[in-house]
C-alpha cells in the first residue's frame, strides 16, 4: 500500500467511523440511563436517511427543513418506542429486553420496506459531489459533512450533559439512579429523553450518511452491530469513548479491507469487517470482572 492509498483508506475509515460513532453514542446514552441495549438503534439511522430522501426528493422540501424534520421524526419514533415497548416491560429480564428491542427493530424495518420498497435511494448531496484534493488523496464534500457533524454532535452533547439541567439530570441518572431519584429526578422521564435523544443522534447519522453511502430499508442491522461494537469498546459508559471507539473501528475496518489479502478482495469486505468486529467483542469487551462473577 502506498502512502497515498494509506491516506485514502484512513479518510474513508474516518468517515465511516464517524457514522459508527454516532450509532455508538445512541447505544451509550440509552444504556447509561436505562441499562438497556437497544437492538433497534441501527433502525433510526435507516429512518433518518429514508425520511430525508422522502421529504427532500419525493415531497420536494428544501434540504435544510427536510433534514431537520427527518431528525425530529426519528426522535419522536424513539420516544414512542420507549412509551409503548420499553416502559410497559418493567422488571423484564435481559433476554426479554433483547427480544423486545429486536421486535421493535423488525417492526420498523418491515414498515419501512412497505413504505419505501427495497431499493437503495440517494438523498441530495449537502454540498455538491466534487472531491477535494487532500495531499495525495481525495475527500468527498459529504464525507467532510459527516466528520464535521459527528464532531459537532459530540461537542454539543458534551455541553448539553455538562451545562443544562436536563443534561445534568441524565448524567446523575446514569451514575446512580437511586440517588438521582432522591433529589427529584424522575427516572422514567430521563429514560424517555434518553430514547428520544439516541434516536435523534441516530437520525442525524442517517441523514448525513445517506447521500454518500446510499440507504435502504435494511441497512439498520449492520450499522447497529458496528455501533454496538464501537460503544462496547468504551464499555457503554462514556460518550467520548464511544466516539473514539467508532472512529477506531472505522479505521481498523478500512485498513483491514485495504490490505492486500490476495484472493480475498473487496467481495469479502464485510466479512473481514465482521470478523474484526467479533474479535474485538471477544477479546476486548463483554468479559466479566471478578466482582460481577461473585454475584
Amino acid at each position, binding site marked *: 500500500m502506498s502512502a497515498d492509498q494509506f491516506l485514502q483508506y484512513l479518510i474513508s475509515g474516518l468517515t465511516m467511523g464517524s457514522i459508527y460513532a454516532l450509532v455508538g453514542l445512541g447505544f451509550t446514552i440509552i444504556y447509561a440511563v436505562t441499562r438497556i441495549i437497544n437492538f433497534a438503534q441501527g433502525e433510526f439511522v435507516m429512518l433518518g436517511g429514508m425520511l430525508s430522501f422522502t421529504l427532500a426528493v419525493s415531497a420536494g422540501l428544501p434540504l435544510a427543513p427536510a433534514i431537520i424534520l427527518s431528525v425530529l421524526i426519528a426522535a419522536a419514533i424513539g420516544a414512542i418506542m420507549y412509551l409503548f415497548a420499553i416502559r410497559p416491560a418493567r422488571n423484564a429480564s435481559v433476554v426479554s429486553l433483547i427480544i423486545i428491542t429486536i421486535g421493535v427493530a423488525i417492526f420498523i424495518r418491515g414498515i419501512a420496506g412497505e413504505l419505501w420498497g427495497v431499493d437503495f435511494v440517494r438523498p441530495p448531496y449537502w454540498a455538491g459531489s466534487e472531491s477535494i484534493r487532500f495531499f495525495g488523496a481525495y475527500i468527498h464534500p459529504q464525507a467532510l459533512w459527516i466528520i464535521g457533524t459527528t464532531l459537532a454532535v459530540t461537542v454539543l452533547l458534551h455541553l448539553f450533559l455538562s451545562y443544562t439541567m436536563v443534561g445534568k439530570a441524565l448524567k446523575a441518572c446514569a451514575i446512580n439512579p437511586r440517588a438521582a431519584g432522591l433529589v427529584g429526578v424522575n427516572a422514567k422521564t430521563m429514560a424517555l429523553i434518553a430514547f428520544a435523544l439516541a434516536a435523534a443522534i441516530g437520525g442525524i447519522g442517517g441523514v448525513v450518511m445517506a447521500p454518500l453511502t446510499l440507504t435502504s430499508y435494511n441497512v439498520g442491522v449492520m450499522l447497529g452491530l458496528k455501533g454496538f461494537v464501537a460503544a462496547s469498546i468504551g464499555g457503554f459508559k462514556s460518550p467520548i469513548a464511544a466516539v473514539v471507539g467508532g472512529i477506531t473501528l472505522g479505521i481498523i475496518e478500512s485498513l483491514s479491507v485495504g490490505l492486500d489479502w490476495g484472493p480475498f478482495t473487496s467481495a469479502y469486505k464485510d466479512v473481514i469487517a465482521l470478523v474484526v468486529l467479533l474479535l474485538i467483542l471477544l477479546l476486548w469487551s463483554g468479559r466479566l470482572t*471478578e466482582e460481577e462473577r461473585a454475584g
Partner: protein
Amino acid sequence: MSESILETRGLSKAFGGLVALDKVDLAIEAGKITAIIGPNGAGKTTLFNLIAGVYSVSEGEILFQGMPLKNTPPHKRARLGIVRTFQHVLLFGNMTVLENIMTGQHPRSRYGFLAAALRLPRARHEEETISLNAMKYLNMVGLGTHAEQSAVSLPLGQQKLLSIARALATEPRLILLDEPGAGLNTLEKRELSDLIRRIREMGISVILVEHDMPLVMGLAEWLIVLDSGQKIAEGTAAQVQKDKRVISAYLGEDEE
C-alpha cells in the same frame, strides 16, 4: 492436633491496588464448625469467595485436604467436596423444591445427554437414586411436604434451609455458609442452628461467615477474626471475646 480440612498459607487478594486480604494463614479443623467474623470490610467475603473459588488468588495458596487448589473453578471444587451457599439464597426459581435438591446431586451422578436422549436404563437407574437421595435431604431440612412447590414460593426461612439442602445434596466434605442467619426470625434461627449441628454430626466440616453474634457464639467451636484484611485473632468463643484487639476492632465500628 487433629487433621485440618482446609489450610491457607499467606493468602492475599488485591483488587487493583486495594488489598482486601493480606497474608492470611489459616488451618480449619476437620469436622468442626468454624466461624469467620469481623467488622464490615474486614475481608470476610473476600476470604469466603477465595475458598469458594469465585475469586482468583493474588498470592499464597489454599490447600484442601492437603491438596493445593490454585485457581480451581467453583464447579470443580464442588466435585472435590467444597460447597457453598449464598447470602441471597439464589435458588433455582424455575424449578420445584425437590428439583432444586435433585440438581444438587449433579456432581454425584454421571449420565449425560445421550443416555438421557435415548432413555437408556442407566439414566433411569441414576434418576431413581437421585430422587431417593434428594428426598432424604428434603426430609432432613423438614421440607418433605413442600416437594412439588415452586422453590421461590417458600418463605425466606425455608428458602435458606432449602439452599442448604441443595448444597448437602452434593455430598460435600466442607460446607461454606454465607450469612445463613441474615433475615431470619428467632424461631428460624433456632432451626438453622439445629440443622448446622446435625450437618456437623454427619462428619461435614462447616465454615460460616455471619454477622449475628449470638448465633455465632452459640454455634461455632472455633472463631477466626479478621480486620482490615488481616487475621487478628482466633480461638474459642470465650477466648475471642476477651481478646483486646478484637474488642477494639469492633468498638471502632458503627452499629450495623
